[in-house]
């Protein structure tokens, strides 16, 4: 049977720093600026300390369920570093790095996971969506936001993020498909941390890569070493610039490893292989960036100590603010349901207020 190839594709993999922080090819210009690189290192460290603190708050009954980003810090910090305030972030539950970079405060994030809607009323990132918990819904929101931006002829990028397991959802394909057909300015980040709670990637898909799922939507798909902040920031910058300038969407699969549990409610030791995890620790993003900084004589033990001290203060202050936040009052269950509360519901509001915070 004679056939003709009518379409073909390839997925490019991007890496600049190996696990030892050694360049694998010519590094981009920004990575030669040690001020930028030091700041990225501090940001990743801050996220790690914040995560540990959040875990401790949950374990001591001071906060609810929390999903950490341990080992995956380079993703959110990387794309977050190239977002401007005009860009819009549509986060999911493991987008803490991106949220922090985009101006959402630690106190707000703690309030969210501490069970208070006030945590989603962002004081700075006014147009960013609250964290999306149902899997993959956010992918379509990103396309909807980008459609509004496109109709208004604005030069703003939309960034969203999803776990690799989430790409099995219909909403993932529906969202990237419409972004492709309408040429919307969205950057879809896939955090491929190898686990969807306990389900590994080989049970999730028969695809060789998650990036190639983009091809079925006519969208550019890129794979990046998600533990290499230089690579993540570089492809993010490319994709965001493209999004802002009418170049359309990009799907970026960032390969990393979830070194933490899915959330505080999970126990990864039930399914994760300790040997695999031990290897993954050698690959994590902070070690290689520190080595890179040291190789460039841009980081010292003193810098490390100063960073630790400063970050501890900053995170502690956020925790104090979180703990001091006023308890929400019962009428808040009703006051933002509609612009105006229906007559039918008003007696319920009164009853809730009367019962008070008992």
């Amino acid at each position, binding site marked *: 049977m004679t056939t003709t190839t009518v379409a073909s594709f390839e997925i490019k993999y991007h890496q600049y720093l190996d696990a030892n922080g050694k360049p694998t090819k010519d590094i981009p210009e920004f990575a030669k600026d040690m001020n930028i690189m030091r700041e990225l290192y501090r940001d990743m460290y801050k996220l790690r300390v914040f995560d540990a603190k959040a875990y401790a708050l949950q374990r001591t009954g001071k906060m609810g369920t929390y999903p950490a980003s341990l080992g995956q810090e380079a993703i959110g910090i990387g794309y977050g570093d190239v977002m401007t305030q005009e860009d819009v972030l549509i986060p999911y539950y493991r987008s803490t790095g991106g949220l922090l970079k985009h101006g959402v405060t630690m106190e707000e994030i703690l309030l969210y996971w501490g069970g208070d809607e006030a945590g989603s009323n962002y004081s700075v990132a006014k147009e960013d969506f609250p964290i999306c918990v149902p899997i993959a819904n956010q992918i379509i929101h990103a396309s909807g936001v980008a459609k*509004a931006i496109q*109709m*208004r002829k604005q030069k703003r990028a939309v960034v969203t993020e999803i776990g690799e397991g989430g790409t099995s959802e219909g909403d993932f394909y529906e969202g990237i498909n*419409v972004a492709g057909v309408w040429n919307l300015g969205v950057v879809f980040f896939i955090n491929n941390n190898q686990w969807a709670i306990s389900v590994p990637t080989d049970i999730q898909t028969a695809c060789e890569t998650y990036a190639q799922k983009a091809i079925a939507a006519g969208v550019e798909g890129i794979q990046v070493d998600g533990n290499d902040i230089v690579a993540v920031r570089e492809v993010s910058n490319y994709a965001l610039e493209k999004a802002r300038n009418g170049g359309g969407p990009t799907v970026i699969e960032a390969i990393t490893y979830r070194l933490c549990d899915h959330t505080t409610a999970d126990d990864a030791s039930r399914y994760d292989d300790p040997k695999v995890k031990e290897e993954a620790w050698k690959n994590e993003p902070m070690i290689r960036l520190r080595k890179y900084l040291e190789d460039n004589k841009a980081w010292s033990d003193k810098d490390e100590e100063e960073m630790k001290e400063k970050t501890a203060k900053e995170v502690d202050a956020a925790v104090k603010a979180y703990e001091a936040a006023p308890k929400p009052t019962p009428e808040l269950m009703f006051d*933002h349901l*509609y612009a105006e509360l229906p007559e039918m519901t008003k007696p319920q509001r009164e009853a809730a207020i009367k019962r008070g915070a008992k």
Partner: protein
Amino acid sequence: MAAITLIEAVNAAMAYELDNDPDVVLFGEDVGKNGGVFRATDGLQKKFGKERVIDTPLAESMIAGLAVGMAAQGMKPIAEMQFMGFIFPAVDQIFCHAARLRHRTRGRITQPLVIRAPYGGGIHAPEHHSESTEALFSHIPGLKVVIPSNPSRAYGLMLAAIRDPDPVIFLEPKRVYRIVKHEVEDNGEEYPLEACFVDREGSDITLISWGAMMHETLQAAEKLAAEGIDAEVIDVATVSPIDMDTILESVEKTGRACIIQEAPKSGSVGSEIAAEIAEKGILNLLAPIGRVSGYDTVMPYYRLEKQYMPTVDRILDEVRTIMEYK
């Protein structure tokens, strides 16, 4: 002023607001050149362009999710579901996001969107094209569910739905899309949401209905008048949140109530109205509340459709039973 059908009124209201407000955008499957499978959007793409009247890929969750994203940016999307039977993939987006975003963000992000869908039986349509599932949406806090029963109401309520700052599920009773014409002035005047309409005043019994069933209900009221029973007829129109004050006032006057709906009986909008009457007006009742509804069964294929749907006769039988109660 021209006499127009319900579907023409929907079209006219959307056209008015597309013209009036640059943030209004309309999209869905086949809404563009084809003008919608029922022609609700006929001519709108030609008039307002492909930028504002948009054919989407075929995916209901995507249509609803796009509306969520666009509304979050302050646009006023009108999204069409081709049939209510196909709305279920979109329910995730409607329940989890459209209904909740204002609440979840303490008012920071709002959802001024409309999701339209033709609904209900009676047109010999294929499977999944005839259900009345308004109760599913009525149950969800944060949504408004609006059902026009005639052309003038379709025009005024659609304008109100588009202008409303919160998400509105706008259900169009397709059986009556073209059965009557009203003189409707295309003046951009809206009708209030969360308000019942008293379509016939009476003193003996309150008949409460909405959507296509209003037509059977009004016919029944005329026949009852010939028997000496003076029925008041209320069109609920906004089935969530319900204007219970109007209903309770009427029941206080008549002492009797009968609810007529096409949807299955259990856990329905009718159930809620009956419960509210019982809770707040039971001492005004001279007889138990009556209900005429679709049966608690799967909407049958169309050969049994007539047997499923409430008829004028079924309404008359139920009202006579209520009137005879001692």
